[in-house]
């Protein structure tokens, strides 16, 4: 950039032919720190030494921007102080020491999921034919034996000429029956006495 000062004849308070900083030079001087002004700004820097108007304007604007920075920083700091603390969940890392526990838990979950399937399967699948036949045969034999025993009892009762309850009357000569009858007669006599 070629340093160039401008003549601003339109200024009310400036003499004809008076030169001032261009807008670009002003911007360069503002944007760059004062200590780092390069050779291309040497002319502008030299102008500031002789032109009180440009120097005052530059200083005033620098001061205003400095105030702006201070005020903005102070306001933001105070606002930040008033804000509630950040509450974010702590991030837990995946610990390698817990890997076995994770495997155990996974296995337990797998078994838990598998158990109902096993139960269902047990109910749905038919038992072995041999076992079924043996159980059925034993039940049938038991029933048949009891039936036969009952029929034999009935047959024996029917085949008797005198029922068991009338046996005593049917054969009075029987010793045992006689004794019993005598005993019963004696007992009745004693009651009479």
């Amino acid at each position, binding site marked *: 950039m070629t340093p160039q000062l*401008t003549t*601003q004849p*339109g*200024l*009310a*308070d400036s003499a004809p032919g008076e030169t*001032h900083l*261009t*807008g*670009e030079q*002003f*911007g*360069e001087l*503002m*944007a760059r720190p004062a200590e780092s002004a390069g050779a291309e700004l040497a002319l502008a820097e030299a102008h500031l030494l002789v032109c009180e*108007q440009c120097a*005052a*304007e530059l200083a*005033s*604007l620098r*001061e*205003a*921007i400095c*105030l*702006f*920075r*201070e*005020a*903005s*920083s*102070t*306001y*933001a*700091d*105070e*606002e*930040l*102080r008033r*804000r509630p*603390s*950040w*509450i*974010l969940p*702590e*991030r*837990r*890392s*995946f*610990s390698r020491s817990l890997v076995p526990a994770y495997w155990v838990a996974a296995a337990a979950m797998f078994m838990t999921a598998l158990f109902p399937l096993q139960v269902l399967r047990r109910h749905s699948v038919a038992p072995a034919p041999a076992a079924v036949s043996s159980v059925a045969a034993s039940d049938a034999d038991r029933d048949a034996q009891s039936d036969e025993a009952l029929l034999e009892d009935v047959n024996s009762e029917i085949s008797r000429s005198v029922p068991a309850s009338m046996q005593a009357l049917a054969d009075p000569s029987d010793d045992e029956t006689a004794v019993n009858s005598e005993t019963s007669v004696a007992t009745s006599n004693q009651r009479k006495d």
Partner: protein
Amino acid sequence: MHMGHEGVRMFPSTSLTLGNEARATPLDDLENVVALYQPRVFRFLLATLRDRDAAETLTQETFLRAWSARVSFREDCSLATWLIRIALNLARDHTRTGRFRFWKRVSASAVDVADVAASVPAHDRSAEAQLIAQQQVAGIWATVAGLSARQRSIFLLRFLEEMEIPEIATVTGLPLGTVKSHLYRALAVIRAQHNSASGATARSSTPRNATMRKAATKEMQ
């Protein structure tokens, strides 16, 4: 540096396990990174968005994004530059939405210019000088709000964050010449406002500065 957030416990360094395959990055100790750079990021976003809630939300988002993308940080720029670049992109995305424009008008958390002006440190100024200083700050704050998004960002990066122009070019991804151009235009607008407000000079009415203001206004639109 103040850090008024004693309760900030984001991702404590003690609980961080990056794994053997992950290389160490400056973001590993995020608690310290937040303590160091949160005020700066928040300040930039607050001046850019002028909304306290939005600035805080995007500040948190900035650090979360940085944490998520920490592996991609190649250290070809400073961590501050990298964080500000993330914040700038988030602010840009945020302001593009129509929702932002609506809430900007009705938001209760919008920054009041008077509050900012009242934050001017008194130092040892007289009451009159303090009042003038507050007026100057209010004027600049209001003028910056009227700049185009790009001019405002570059102005704030240079004069609020005190970044050098090459650093600003890195943050914005713009060529150096473009950054300078936007910066000078923004300065021309600020200078014109400052001169007219202070009444110190009549140069703001010159044809040259009027042309500059016109160009800057055109850029803003």
